């Protein structure tokens, strides 16, 4: 195999944790299939992160200096296309992150690369990569191969590949600047960042979260679960659809675009467990999931599960607690 090219990610001057998961996956691929591992960073000031991106096993760090301080998808696309052209990797590993979703598919399309996104496992067969990902909303898994593709780019799901610990094994790999003309590539203008407003409670600090999802069905039903949370001594959190509907503030949302929580107990009622939700709660110490669909993906991360209607369960919990 010619080699693996990792596209590391930084935002607002900090390396993103997924970068180390990508490097971990690349080193595992090198162990399985041989070849070289190069780690590229496209950033306004990439040199400052170069040492961190070269744990033992990485053969080279590629430095691509962006003319812009912030991520810009068209600059990133031109940089990725240039890197592929110069380096001719057989495999490119990027993160299935919001930034990468904004440009990697465009490069894969225009250059007719092998491509799969939201990849959860990677193996090798006959010298080529085989990618595993979910199908039908993660109720099934599918395997893909990439016949006839000289370069395949895979976008890896965050939190599924073991990271290389930052800074382990000193950075012996040389850093090399790759000169690409990115000066006129930008087609959008960064105006600023905004944080979601903090709410009345910080759900990341709670020991016990009672979390409700689409199963609550109507806005009028939420009050009942707020009261139930009070009686249980829990804090109420929610999954995305309740925030989308405007029923609850964003500060209560668990998931990729909301908060990542790690309570001692996470009691999920009527939450099916989309991957973006699981990303925000899978490391809770004890997860108890209640859903009427026995195939709901949330049962794959729960420690305890019950196939029960959340309203019937609420009736019984209220009675047990003397409501």
């Amino acid at each position: 195999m010619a080699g693996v090219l990792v596209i590391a990610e930084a935002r607002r001057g900090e390396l993103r944790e997924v970068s180390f998961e990508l490097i971990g996956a690349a080193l595992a691929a090198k162990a399985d299939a041989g070849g070289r591992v190069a780690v590229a960073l496209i950033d306004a000031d990439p040199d400052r992160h170069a040492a961190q991106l070269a744990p033992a096993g990485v053969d080279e760090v590629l430095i691509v200096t962006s003319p812009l301080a912030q991520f810009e998808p068209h600059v990133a696309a031109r940089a990725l296309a240039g890197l592929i052209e110069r380096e001719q990797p057989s495999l490119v590993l990027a993160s299935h992150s919001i930034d990468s979703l904004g440009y990697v598919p465009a490069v894969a399309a225009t250059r007719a690369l092998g491509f799969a996104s939201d990849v959860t496992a990677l193996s090798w067969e006959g010298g080529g990569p085989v990618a595993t990902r979910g199908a039908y909303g993660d109720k099934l898994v599918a395997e893909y191969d990439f016949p006839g593709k000289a370069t395949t780019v895979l976008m890896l799901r965050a939190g599924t590949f073991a990271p290389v610990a930052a800074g382990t094994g000193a950075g012996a790999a040389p850093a090399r600047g790759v000169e690409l003309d990115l000066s006129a590539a930008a087609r959008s203008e960064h105006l600023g960042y905004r944080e979601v407003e903090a709410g009345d409670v910080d759900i990341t600090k709670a020991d016990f979260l009672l979390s409700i999802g689409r199963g609550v069905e109507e806005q009028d039903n939420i009050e009942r679960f707020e009261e139930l949370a009070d009686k249980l001594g829990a804090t109420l959190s929610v999954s995305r659809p309740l925030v989308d509907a405007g029923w609850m503030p964003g500060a209560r949302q668990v998931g990729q675009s909301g908060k990542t929580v790690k309570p001692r107990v996470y009691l999920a009622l009527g939450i099916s467990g989309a991957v973006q939700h699981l990303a925000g709660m899978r490391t809770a110490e004890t997860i108890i999931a209640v859903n009427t669909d026995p195939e709901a993906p949330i049962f794959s991360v729960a420690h305890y599960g019950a196939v029960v209607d959340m309203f019937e369960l609420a009736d019984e919990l209220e009675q047990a607690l003397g409501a």
Partner: protein
Amino acid sequence: MKIVVPVKQVAALDDEFELLDDGSGVDPDGLEFSLNEWDTFSLEAALQIRDAAGGEVVVISVGDEEAEEGLLSALAKGADRGLRIWDEELEDLDALAVARVLSVAVSREAPDLILCGVQSSDAVNSATGIALAGHLGLPHVAVVKAISLDGASLTVERELEGGLVEVVRVGVPALLTIQTGINEPRYATLRAIKQAREKPLAVESLADLGLSADDVAAAAGSHRRRLAPPDRGEGAEILNGSPAEVAARIVSLVQERIG
């Protein structure tokens, strides 16, 4: 302003779905179809812009007869006309191949704006829209949760991880992928559902678009070789019994862990 909204009729597994014996797919009898949830938000965003600024909303779908229903529901909600692209060669396309097919139809429309859903609920590639932008050579912004239009300039909010939002300006023509929650999708009235059948809804083949099966195959990025049930690992310990018994177990589990 002319806006194209590519939509997808998605498939969900019903309670009794079965895999085909060769593992190549799911028995179609076990699938339930509906308009992709993300596309109801991109459609609503397009309708709101048209209602404010004038113009036309064109919905396009690549799919068999099932996709007709999705297009009709988009027409009932207010889209002006529809196009369905289908050919037997188009069975089981991946995101990049769909983007290639769409690119020909969209480019023919020469729209000012293309609004796609961030992802489809069945395949969850989150790739078709941005791949389409690549083929069209248009500026693009992914995962948008607010849009304001000022002349030929769009100010949009990108939803990043962890509750962070980036505000970005981009000129038209452009392609945006739209996140759920950006608006409140409208429902169609019964009258509008009846009238939708009077609106223009064309069906075209690959040949009509000037594409060959080889063109589409060359654009595909992947080949699915197997579909299987997930390895659930050890899975959850299932709490059996009546709702009262389940409630009692949950209360004691919580007490053991929280005290």
